[in-house]
């Protein structure tokens, strides 16, 4: 487990999860998670399906309130505030960008897809919106492909383009925390590598949580990685520690070596 104190040379803690237990209809789907995520790192979460990875993300931006059967105990401290006790969840969600496994291009134009979050936040000036849209699309490596058809429907783009559109939309929130939930499931390898490049670039501005079931993707990108298995957090460690032979945990080793999952 990660130590409570900040080790020298470490970045400040962005998010600290203490004794988090999530249950669904009384059945635990993730129990006793303790981990800390540092500012401006890419934090990987790996683990087989059903390990509770997505539920963990749902807690972070309080999407759990739309699932009444879900109950949560513990603490998630982000910037000194326990977000599980937070009332203004809208501000929280605005500061947390989420990218889903399957791209969700809203049936709006490409432009409106990216401008939606700024508009929700009250930005109305056309000039300012134009700037945000171009900047976000550029950072999501999509601008060159769509700059001539910003007014066509976002939902008509190809799968890989839509996923980058979703990332651009998440970036338009100027998120403190960007959560990606198995973003590469519906994306071809070339686009995956492009998005991975994008993530490496933007981590200087935001903290990224990368949930993935491609262990090699976590290895490529994450500085530290958590391994979730059987509704619990088995191990949190520096990514290289977790992947190389010195791993102490037998289950982790079996998983990263591809023996199950």
């Amino acid at each position, binding site marked *: 487990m990660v130590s409570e104190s900040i080790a020298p040379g470490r970045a400040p803690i962005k998010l600290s999860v203490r004794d988090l237990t999530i249950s669904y209809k009384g059945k635990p789907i993730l129990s006793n998670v303790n981990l800390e995520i540092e500012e401006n790192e890419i934090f990987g979460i790996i683990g087989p399906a059903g390990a509770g990875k997505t539920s963990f993300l749902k807690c972070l931006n309080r999407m759990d309130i739309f699932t*009444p059967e879900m109950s949560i105990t513990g603490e998630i401290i982000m910037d000194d505030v326990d977000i599980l006790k937070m009332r203004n969840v809208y501000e929280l*969600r605005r*500061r947390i960008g*989420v990218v889903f496994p399957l791209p*969700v291009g*809203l049936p709006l134009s490409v432009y409106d897809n990216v401008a939606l979050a700024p508009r929700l936040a009250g930005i109305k000036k056309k000039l300012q919106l134009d700037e945000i849209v171009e900047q976000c699309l550029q950072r999501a490596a999509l601008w060159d492909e769509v700059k001539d058809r910003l007014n066509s*429907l976002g939902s008509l783009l190809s799968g890989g383009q839509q996923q980058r559109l979703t990332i651009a939309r998440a970036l338009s*929130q100027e998120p403190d925390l960007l959560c990606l939930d198995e973003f590469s499931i519906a994306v071809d390898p070339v686009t995956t590598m492009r998005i991975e490049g994008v993530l490496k670039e933007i981590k200087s501005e935001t903290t990224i949580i990368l949930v993935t079931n491609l262990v090699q993707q976590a290895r490529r990108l994450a500085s530290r990685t958590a391994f979730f298995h059987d509704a619990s957090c088995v191990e949190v460690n520096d990514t290289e520690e977790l992947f190389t032979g010195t791993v102490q945990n037998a289950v982790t080793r079996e998983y990263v070596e591809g023996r199950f999952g």
Partner: protein
Amino acid sequence: MSVTADSFSFPQGAFASTGLNLRKEKVQYLFRLLFMLMTGLLILPVALILGMLVYKGGPAISVDFLFTDPTQGMTAGGIFPALFGTIWLVAVSLLFSVPLGIAAAIYLSEYAPNNWLTRLINLCIINLAGVPSIVHALHGFGAFVLFAGMGTSILAASLTLAIMTMPVVIVATKESLQAVPQSFREATWNLGATRWQTIVKVVVPNAVSGILTGIILEVSRSAGETAPIMFTGAVFFLPFLPQDLFDQTMALSLHLFVVSTQVPGMPEETPYGVALVLIGLVLIMNSLSIAFRMYLRGKKKW
């Protein structure tokens, strides 16, 4: 690469047709034919009704017929007060039922928790849609004409129509709202939108065409209903136009009943003419909404 005639001939060897294949093909052909015929049968009544009305009622239609008052005990002159009255009744009933119905549908689809109360409300709405119109008429007479003291008036008749047609609006709106993928809502919530912002910016714009369908169904039904307005606001004959919502009015549907059964010496084409105007009104509304929906659908896709 060119396609030779050979590639269209029956596959041979390992892919040769078996008896089972041929039988399945025959069955499939038979059912397709059967269902096609049934679909054709559906068009038949519409075509017959319209054809009959145009053939028999067409000669009655003229500018005078549409825009003058009936004269000589309704056997001559036009139908303007009835046409005018129907438009009023439908418009006023829409004014009540559309906002209420859409609001209720949005609540039921977007806000209401899935519990016994919501299920009970849904059941009530479905039952309300099943209440016979004559019962609605009596209720309207009791509640609006007598109890609320509106008298037999456009307002009372429109309210009765509104209550009768509201379930159609609610059900159509609710279904089209629920047809909007949940992932759209989640994506919008994730951007920090409130439920209300999500409804306004994403859910309703994508459900407009279904909502319109509900409203049009309502228009068609209100325009054609006779019983509810007979008790509450429509009259047999009124030689002048209503001045405000508390006046009585003539209406096309009741007028049709009157001219076809109650007035001796009515020229034969007049009832057909009235029916043609009534159905024309509904068809025009329908086509307008279809055009509008096609325009919207061209704009939105997923």
